[in-house]
């Protein structure tokens, strides 16, 4: 599998304008499938607008120790976009005054930001109680300096949300890279050791499942049961909940869909599974996404498509929550990924 980002490979799809062009042409241009905007109109849900802000999701950088085949961030070791101390300082100013109760840290591997720990500590001092760190797990085993992460997470009662595409080695390594499964298992055991994921424990450990291919996630509860049974039997691993997330047709997953000639069928599957009930709770209605360089987006996916919020306020340095909340959410055909079936968000199903 590829060990470089699309960007480093000079792939056409590293260009976000090219991705937007693909998502707006073909089956959506000739009317074979309705655009997302038309689908929302059909179901009287247009325009999509934010509800109460609950989560600030901050992307600390696109650098990652893994190069997953489906990554919507196009993250990897070759990505140099890392949030600076100055931007972190601007985020902290916002954290002091925001109505959001949760700080959701993502990347890349957020832990690879050299100021990751300092930022968490400062945010805790600024009053954040609910932290989420989206950890790829293997980072905990990547280098000795990261071995202490489980203890650091515990110290700040950080809710750890970890990617785990399957309970078998073969399927996991195919999506995420050779050796990822074994390292992830070891990392989960380390988290369990300090108390994460155990029944009744306040140290929350949730897993994220996303399909390893051109198909939608099945029933979240059924998958959770299968994961729990297998991880417990095979490795004595405990975790709390499984979030089933749909792959959105952008970046590396879009590249895969096109290269494997699955793009059209996949889009048909997403549109067929459109669920208006899921629209009510899509994450862009309660989340603001902040990029490594401080720009504001409706969600992490829009961030990767370079679709900044439709507001006068577009940067964390000019943050004004009231003004920002009074906006329409930017949508396009990739949004079908969050409204298919039981819906999909960074917290799993929404309907």
């Amino acid at each position, binding site marked *: 599998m590829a060990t470089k980002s699309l960007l480093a490979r000079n792939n056409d799809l590293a260009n976000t304008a090219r991705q937007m062009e693909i998502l707006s042409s073909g089956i959506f241009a000739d009317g074979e499938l309705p655009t997302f905007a038309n689908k929302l109109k059909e179901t009287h849900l247009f325009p999509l607008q934010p509800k109460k802000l609950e989560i600030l999701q901050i992307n600390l950088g696109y650098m990652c120790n893994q190069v997953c085949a489906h990554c919507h961030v196009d993250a990897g070791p070759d990505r140099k976009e890392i949030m600076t101390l100055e931007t972190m300082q601007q985020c902290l100013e916002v954290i002091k005054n925001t109505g959001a109760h949760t700080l959701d840290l993502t990347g890349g591997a957020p832990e690879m930001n050299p100021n990751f720990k300092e930022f968490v500590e400062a945010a805790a001092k600024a009053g954040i109680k609910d932290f989420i760190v989206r950890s790829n797990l293997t980072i905990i085993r990547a280098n000795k300096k990261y071995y202490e992460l489980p203890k650091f997470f515990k110290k700040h009662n950080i809710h750890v949300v970890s990617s785990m595409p*399957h*309970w078998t080695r073969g399927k996991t390594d195919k999506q995420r890279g050779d050796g990822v499964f074994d390292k992830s298992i070891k990392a989960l055991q380390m988290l369990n050791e300090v108390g994460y994921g155990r029944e009744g424990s306040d140290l929350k450990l949730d897993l994220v*499942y996303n*399909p390893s291919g051109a*198909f*939608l996630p*099945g*029933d979240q509860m*059924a998958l959770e049961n*299968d994961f729990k049974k297998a991880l417990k039997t095979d490795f004595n691993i405990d975790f709390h909940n499984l979030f089933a997330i749909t792959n959105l047709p952008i970046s590396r997953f879009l590249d895969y869909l096109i290269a494997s000639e699955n793009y059209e069928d996949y889009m048909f599957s997403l549109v067929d599974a459109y669920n208006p009930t899921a629209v009510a709770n899509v994450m862009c209605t309660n989340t603001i996404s902040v990029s490594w360089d401080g720009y504001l987006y409706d969600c992490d996916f829009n961030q990767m498509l370079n679709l900044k919020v439709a507001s006068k306020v577009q940067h964390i340095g000019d943050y004004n929550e009231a003004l920002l909340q009074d906006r329409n959410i930017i949508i396009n055909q990739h949004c079908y990924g969050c409204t298919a079936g039981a819906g999909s968000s960074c917290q799993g199903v929404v309907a």
Partner: protein
Amino acid sequence: MAKPYYDASDLRKFGKITEWSEELGNKFFDYYGKVFEEGALTAREKSLIALAVAHTEQCPYCIDAYTKDGLERGITKEQMMEAIHVGAAIKSGATLVHGVQMMNKVNKLEM
């Protein structure tokens, strides 16, 4: 250009059979949907049965549909292949068990 009898994209149009016979079509799809709900058997078990039968029936649409359904449920390729072997075993068993009929006939006809 030669047109194949089967077209993978026809599967998406399956629902259209109701257009030419609404009542029967709807009754069929209601029934179909109900059959695959969680019951005395899990939806996962039913998916594997469907995959095996799809092969014995040699229905390309059903094979596409239940392979994808299996992947969505986290069913592994090893499990899918084993399910198909169950279908194949019954198919070949059904052929071979008729061998007894052949043997009976031979025994009856031969001196």
